């Protein structure tokens, strides 16, 4: 099950905790993986750790030209593209009344607009090959909202609607478009929480623990597999039960 041998995958934000776990999971199942992110050294280190079947394709997703060049670069490196994982995302949290236009625009540009451009480019090549898997990393916040994250919540909810629209357009071409929506996942940010903060978060998570990158990667792996061919326009929530939606 979930064998990805011979499949070619592009993962954005591959230097982050979740992105790295996704790249590792796809690679472990046999996929050839193009690793994207902004930090070249970290990408090189991950590629070195994974060994063969990896390519490093750095890109700053807030730069339109870099975004436009990313899918062609990944295709050139791998000789095709079967799987796109839109994982890269940023936050610029602020209370709504204080949120600056720049904070709004920066988050929407990277989380939503860059994903749109990558999906537009990827779906062209996937249509020709009559096969494709697109998975975007959303967030529980895209469904539930969260104070201080109006921009982030909007961008993540936007990914869901956009994915459904594209899913309907290309379903007949054997291309699926889905989202994975993580809840609270262990990261450098959650490591910085004190015990009291951690406790109050966990009080709302029936599973009683924070999620891991591997938890998210497993969901991505499923949706990226051939076996998930009849699942499209869906959002798979990976949140330990904190929001059952």
């Amino acid at each position, binding site marked *: 099950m979930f064998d990805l041998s011979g499949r070619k995958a592009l993962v954005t934000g591959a230097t982050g905790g979740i992105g790295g776990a996704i790249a590792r999971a796809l690679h472990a199942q046999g996929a050839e993986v193009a690793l994207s992110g902004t930090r070249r050294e970290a990408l090189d280190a991950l590629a070195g750790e994974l060994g063969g079947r990896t390519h490093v394709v750095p890109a700053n997703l807030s730069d339109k030209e870099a975004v436009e060049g990313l899918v062609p670069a990944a295709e050139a490196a791998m000789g095709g593209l079967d799987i796109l994982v839109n994982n890269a995302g940023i936050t610029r949290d602020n209370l709504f009344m204080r949120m600056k236009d720049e904070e709004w625009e920066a988050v929407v540009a990277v989380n939503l607009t860059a994903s749109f451009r990558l999906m537009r480019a990827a779906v*062209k090549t996937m*249509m*020709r090959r009559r096969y494709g898997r697109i998975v975007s990393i959303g967030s529980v916040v895209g469904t539930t909202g969260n104070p201080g994250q109006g921009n982030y919540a909007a961008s993540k909810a936007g990914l869901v609607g956009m994915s459904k629209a594209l899913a309907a*357009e*290309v379903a*007949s*071409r054997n291309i699926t478009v889905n989202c994975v929506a993580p809840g609270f996942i262990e990261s450098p940010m959650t490591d910085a929480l004190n015990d009291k903060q951690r406790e109050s978060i966990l009080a709302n998570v029936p599973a009683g623990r924070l999620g891991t990158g591997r938890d998210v990667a497993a969901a991505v792996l499923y949706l990226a597999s051939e076996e998930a061919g009849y699942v499209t326009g869906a959002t798979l929530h990976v949140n330990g039960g904190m929001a059952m939606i």
Partner: protein
Amino acid sequence: MSDIAERVKKIVVEHLGVDAEKVTDNANFIDDLGADSLDTVELVMAFEEEFGVEIPDDAAETIVTVGDAIKFLEKNASA
């Protein structure tokens, strides 16, 4: 029939899975050949690939019949 016309018709037959005799110059991709809007986008992509030419969106919108495609490509194709 010109070489370009022949190649265009071959692509249409292959892509839409229709009988060759239906693919006349006057045949409308959507009304006569059963294409949906996604098919028309794919046909334009296939023409671009076959003839090494870029078909901008505003030109693509004017290509509604097989003859329209042939005319455009006879004017713009590089190979």
